Each structure stands twice: as structure tokens, then as C-alpha cells.
């Protein structure tokens, strides 16, 4: 029979855990609101910028800019965006699994990694893949300038031909309950093919002021930054969503566990009382006899 004291102790410990998970859920919920607003506000800019870039790059010569230059190199760079902290369900696991798959698919190429987030580093540092750069603790100090730094870095690696293709693996924020792992080719920038019919109808050549090349250059630089900015915002909103859901589940499970333990405790207590009663009665009977 389970010891009453032990059960009581377990109930107390589960209750403590539940308090922590509840608090974490609330913290995640409030952070989520902020992160969600940030990503929703940033999306229109990112999408519009992509539109503009598409319009230009589809029409101009790809040789015009180094970042549009497609080459069949063997150097592949993968940027993995994870969180710095755990306890957020499958958030980090999904990213790492997808990245590992991407790495396995490109075994014959020259792979290197750029890691953002502590969890990705923890996983990949023990594996032999070449890690070029790490951004640990980015979640806390993330802003537009940081995005620019990372974007510039990737662009420079590409221009220096240290990487011939750059992918980014991150979580996209779908809803509070749902994140989707996205594998995106960052560089070279691939213009989406234009709808041929639409193009001939409405859009003749653009007028460029001052000129095509300098606009393209400025746009591409900005595009890199905005891409990073958006991916990181998506990721941090997803992280908070995932954590909130995970902690909600954890709190509920803790509640179930407490219920089950209380039941066992009461049963054990009752059995103990019954036993004691029987002993007393037996003792009295024995004395009588």
C-alpha cells in the first residue's frame, strides 16, 4: 500500500510545478500579444518590398547585381533559427529535425551553418557540420539594427563566394496554436515569374530615378534586412505561441495528475482508518475474551 506521506509529498510537488507552468503560460501569453502585433505590423512592408523587388528583378538583367547571380556552387549555407529557451513543445525539435533533414539531403555538398538561438547551437555543436556564425541570445536584444547586421553578413558571405546558396529554416507564425516550419532560399534572390499576360497588358518599362542599378542595390540590401527581420519576428511570435500551448497542456496534465493522486491519497487514508478500526475492535474483542 502506498505510503500516505509519500503521496502527500508528491501532490505538493506536482502543485508547485503546476504553479510554475501556469505562470509561464501567462508570461508567454503576454509576450505573445506583443510579438504577434510586431509580426502583423511588419508583414505588409516585407510583402510589398518583395513585390517591388520582384517587379524589378524579373525585368532586369540578373548580371546587374551580385545577389541576383545564380551559380551552381557546392557551398551551401543553412541558417537555422531556433529559440534560446526550451519548454515550448515541439518548437525547437521541429526546426532541428527539418534542418537535419536538409543537411542529410545535401550530404555531397559543402555545408556550413549559421545558427541563431541557443537550442540550435546545443544540438549542432556536437555534430561535425561546420558552424560559421552563431547568434546566441538574439531574442532578447533583437531589433532592426540586429537584423541588418545578420542580413549584411549573409550578403557578404554570398558576394565573397563563401556560399553559393543560402537557406533559412525558421518557424512561421500561423496562429497561436500553429507554427509551420519554413525552408526558404534567401540567396540568390529568385524572382517569381510574372504572369505573362498581365505583364504585357499593363506594365511597360519602368522609369527609374536615379537609375536601375543603384535602386536595385539599395532595394536588395533592404530586402535582406527585412527578410531577416521578418523571419526573426515570425520565429519569436511562434515561440511564444508554442510555449503558451505547451504550458497550457502542462498545467492541465498537472491538474489531472493532482486529481489522480488525491484519489489515491483518499483511498489510502480510508484504508488506513479502516485498518485501524479493525485493529481496535479486534483488540477490544481480545480483551473481552
Amino acid at each position: 500500500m502506498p505510503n500516505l506521506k509519500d503521496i502527500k509529498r508528491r501532490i505538493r510537488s506536482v502543485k508547485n510545478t503546476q504553479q510554475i507552468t501556469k505562470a509561464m503560460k501567462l508570461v508567454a501569453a503576454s509576450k505573445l500579444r506583443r510579438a504577434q502585433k510586431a509580426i502583423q505590423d511588419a508583414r505588409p512592408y516585407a510583402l510589398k518590398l518583395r513585390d517591388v523587388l520582384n517587379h524589378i528583378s524579373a525585368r532586369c538583367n540578373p548580371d546587374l547585381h551580385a545577389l541576383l547571380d545564380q551559380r551552381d556552387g557546392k557551398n551551401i549555407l543553412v541558417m537555422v533559427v531556433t529559440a534560446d529557451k526550451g519548454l515550448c513543445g515541439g518548437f525547437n525539435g521541429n526546426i532541428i529535425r527539418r534542418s537535419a533533414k536538409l543537411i542529410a539531403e545535401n550530404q555531397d555538398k559543402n555545408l556550413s551553418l549559421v545558427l541563431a538561438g541557443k537550442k540550435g547551437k546545443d544540438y549542432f555543436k556536437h555534430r561535425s557540420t561546420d558552424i560559421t556564425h552563431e547568434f546566441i541570445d538574439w531574442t532578447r536584444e533583437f531589433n532592426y539594427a540586429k537584423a541588418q547586421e545578420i542580413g549584411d553578413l549573409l550578403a557578404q558571405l554570398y558576394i565573397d563566394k563563401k556560399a553559393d546558396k543560402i537557406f533559412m529554416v525558421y518557424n512561421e507564425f500561423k496562429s497561436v496554436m500553429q507554427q509551420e516550419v519554413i525552408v526558404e532560399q534567401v540567396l540568390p534572390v529568385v524572382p517569381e515569374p510574372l504572369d505573362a499576360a498581365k505583364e504585357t497588358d499593363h506594365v511597360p518599362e519602368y522609369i527609374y530615378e536615379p537609375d536601375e542599378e543603384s535602386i536595385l542595390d539599395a532595394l536588395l540590401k533592404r530586402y535582406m534586412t527585412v527578410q531577416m527581420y521578418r523571419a526573426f519576428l515570425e520565429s519569436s511570435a511562434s515561440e511564444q505561441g508554442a510555449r503558451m500551448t505547451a504550458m497550457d497542456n502542462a498545467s492541465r496534465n498537472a491538474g489531472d495528475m493532482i486529481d489522480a493522486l488525491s484519489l489515491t491519497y483518499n483511498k489510502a487514508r480510508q484504508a488506513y482508518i479502516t485498518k485501524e478500526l479493525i485493529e481496535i475492535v479486534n483488540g477490544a474483542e481480545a480483551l473481552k475474551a
Partner: protein
Amino acid sequence: MADFLHLSLVTPEKQLVGEDVDQVNVPGSEGDLGILLGHAPLITNLRPGPLSYEKGGATTSFIVSGGYLEVTDNRVIILAESAEFLHEVDRERAEKAKSKAEAILLKTGISEEEFKDAQDDLFRAVARLEHTEK
């Protein structure tokens, strides 16, 4: 063909405007532009300065600090680095930014990058101050 220009003014922080307007006036890098219905496709850089649009006789003004403008098919997309409503401009902050940038520019031996950054800051601050003087 649409009867209006559709204007979207977006910054990395948020979308400020997304509506049909009559005319858009922007500070292009090569000079100010007024965009009306049926404008030819155009892409240009913007310099820091005043931006406004007119709708039904009413004018709404902003200060932008650089960015891009695209016009296609009566859609005007403005990707501004930052933009604020004219009445929201913080003159005090702009004054401070201006004197700080001027101080940097007066120093000798600063790198080209520092010089350029300070110069950009100065332009932005001046654009804010110039158009809010009233």
C-alpha cells in the same frame, strides 16, 4: 481602369495608409513628384522630407525619412524607412538629433561611414524641423 490611385504607405513597423486617394506628393531623390491618376510606371528612391496625399480636397501630411516609391497601374507603394504624421513629429527630439549630428560632423578624423551616418541623421532631423515650423 480604376478611378483612384491606391496608396499604400508602409514602414517596417507598420502599415500607415492603405486607401484610395486623388494625388500623392513625394520627395523623390531627384526632386519632388506629384503623382496623379494614370502615372507611368516608376520606381524611385525617396529622400527624407515631407510626403502628403490628397483625398476629396483634404490633405494629409507625413514626414518620411527615405525609402522607395513604386507606381504601377494606379497603385502607389511607398516603402518608407520610417514615417510619422506631421502633427506627431517630436521637434525636441529632432533638435537634439540635429545638434548631435552637427557635433559629429564638426569633429575631425571620423571615418567615412561615421560621416555618412551623421549626415543622414542630420538630413532627417532637418527635414523634420523644416516642415513643422509653423
